[in-house]
């Protein structure tokens, strides 16, 4: 199998890569704040070495917290003092500034490593809520900043953060010689450290993370048609798992990682199937003349949400994979597609057509079924939940360019990730 795919890579100019740093750096803009957000201040971390510190840890933490929409961060220009530990803090100053929580810390060189220490302080109680020290190499400074952000998030909100996670997306670029290039990229959740894991002269789409976060399933057109591959991220090793007649697309991992839901159009009808990865057994789950696609698993692994236009326009339905009973889920408007579930299975995010165009909407599953449009774009698509369910990552447009955005489920905060000269699309947030 592996040997056969090797030949295919060469003929179609496909290059699977062990993670390779991409040249383009992501540009990150954080837009807006939230009114109901918790007011915090993150003091610049005291630097005890020569020159400037390897990373601005306080800035990374502050940006992380703000883009969740659940925090607002006091600008440094309004600080009355810059403490680096609890004993230096005059809590009355921070109370006067309306800050609920203060984060202080320092970075010290320690041989070829750096010692990073932080404290999370309760301004009203004048007390310490959390605090820790880490020793890390230079290239882990951003990672440790995300770990600290996660600890602060959990200490203040009582649920885990999702800052120390990754995203996958597809970048497309027209070269000067007229060739078009597609790359499958993984990056930190804040867009930093983009690395290509596949490069191709034909389209790549629909990356899907395995539940363990160590593999990606995706659709590649390297043989001039859609086929599904699974690639191990660390080694770059990959295998073609679906290459039936017609469309092979929309891979979705079951919660146990042993099955893949996918869309096939063999026999001329676009339906949802489930592929048993170990045995290769294939089972048809839907059977309808309409388009059925974009399956996503409910957390119990027994039913799927999917898009179908069986009612005359695309809406989201639910199917039980054992008895194949189908139930309609969305009723708002005449275009709802690309369902993606929050990790707790209580909410579904989707592409929803509005007066303005296509935006990302969220619907609560169950009795009340509250529905709201989360984003304000006109061409938003491919929503993907953060593993803690607090944010949605999606593809959008900014100044005519194809970029990624994150939107908070709790406030107005939005973030745009873009790279120069590339269209970036089809994002997926890692577990």
């Amino acid at each position, binding site marked *: 199998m592996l040997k056969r795919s090797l030949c295919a890579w060469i003929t179609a100019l496909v290059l699977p890569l062990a993670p390779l740093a991409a040249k383009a750096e992501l540009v990150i803009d954080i837009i807006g704040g939230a009114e109901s957000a918790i007011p915090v201040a993150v003091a610049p971390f005291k630097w005890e070495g020569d020159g400037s510190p390897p990373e601005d840890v306080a800035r990374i933490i502050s940006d992380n917290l703000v883009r969740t929409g659940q925090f607002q961060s006091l600008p440094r220009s309004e600080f009355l003092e810059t403490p680096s530990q609890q004993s230096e803090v005059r809590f009355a100053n921070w109370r006067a500034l309306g800050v609920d929580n203060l984060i202080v810390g320092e970075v010290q060189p320690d041989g070829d490593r750096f010692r990073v220490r932080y404290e999370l302080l309760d301004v009203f109680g004048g007390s310490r809520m959390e605090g820790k020290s880490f020793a890390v190499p230079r290239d882990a400074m951003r990672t440790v900043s995300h770990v600290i952000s996660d600890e602060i998030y959990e200490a203040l909100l009582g649920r885990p953060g999702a800052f120390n996670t990754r995203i996958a997306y597809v970048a497309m670029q027209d070269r000067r010689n007229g060739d078009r290039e597609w790359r499958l990229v993984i990056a930190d959740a804040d867009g930093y450290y983009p690395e290509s894991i596949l490069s191709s002269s034909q*389209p790549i789409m629909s990356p899907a993370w395995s539940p363990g976060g160590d593999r990606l399933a995706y659709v590649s057109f390297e043989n001039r048609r859609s086929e599904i591959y699974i690639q191990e991220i660390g080694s770059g090793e990959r295998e073609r798992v679906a290459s039936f007649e017609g*469309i092979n697309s929309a891979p979705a991992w079951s919660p146990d990682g042993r099955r893949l839901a996918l869309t096939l159009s063999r026999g001329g009808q676009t339906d949802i199937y489930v592929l048993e990865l170990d045995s290769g057994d294939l089972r048809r789950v839907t059977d309808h003349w309409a388009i059925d696609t974009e399956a996503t698993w409910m957390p119990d692994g027994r039913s799927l949400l999917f898009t179908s236009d069986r009612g005359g326009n695309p809406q989201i339905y639910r199917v039980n994979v054992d008895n194949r009973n189908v139930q309609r889920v969305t009723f708002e408007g005449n275009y709802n597609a690309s369902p993606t579930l929050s990790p707790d299975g209580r909410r579904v995010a989707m592409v929803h057509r509005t007066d303005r165009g296509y935006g990302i909407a969220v619907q609560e599953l169950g009795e009340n079924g509250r529905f709201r449009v989360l984003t304000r774009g006109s061409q938003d698509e491919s929503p993907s939940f953060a593993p803690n369910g607090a944010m949605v990552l999606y593809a959008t447009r900014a100044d005519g360019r194809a970029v990624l955005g994150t939107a908070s489920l709790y406030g107005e905060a939005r973030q745009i990730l873009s790279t120069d000269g590339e269209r970036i*699309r089809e994002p997926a947030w890692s577990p």
Partner: protein
Amino acid sequence: MYGKHLSRWLMPALLALFLTGCATVGDEERVEDRQDGELTEEELAAIDRQRAAEARGVDGRRLVEGDALEELLEDPDSPIAQRTVYFAFDSSEIRERDVSILEAHAAFLADHPDQRITVEGHTDERGAPEYNLALGERRAEAVKRALVLYGASADQIRVTSYGEENPVDLGSNEEAWAQNRRAELVYRY
């Protein structure tokens, strides 16, 4: 015995040569008699036109490939010169103005029964990429159905969809979208 064998093979071969080549043999000799440098521009243009005509004069062949196919694809006057048809938003209906294009391809396919083509369906960028992949296939299938209706054989036509993944125009406006909602008839890769 040898002679009998030979004639059995030779006769149809000669007949085939006669049928496909007789109209052009004389002209080729005339051209080869002279140096290129002696030809006037008009004569050169005439030769080009004639070569294109020869390439089109592929009647009787079951398959056109190689240089003959290249010329046919490049020649703006050839019946298969136009290989893209366009669609209205959210539609996979063949437009009236594209019918003659598809009729010409169907006739060509019927005349060349070993010819194979791929119909690639594409959509504009709006909406969900995976759903668009299925819509693109609907467009390609609609083109295939039309080609079969006009006389091509279904097994000559392979259908594939790229959805919104490979736009012709990277713009994000009505004009770009109209260019991108298309099906392409691909004779070779």
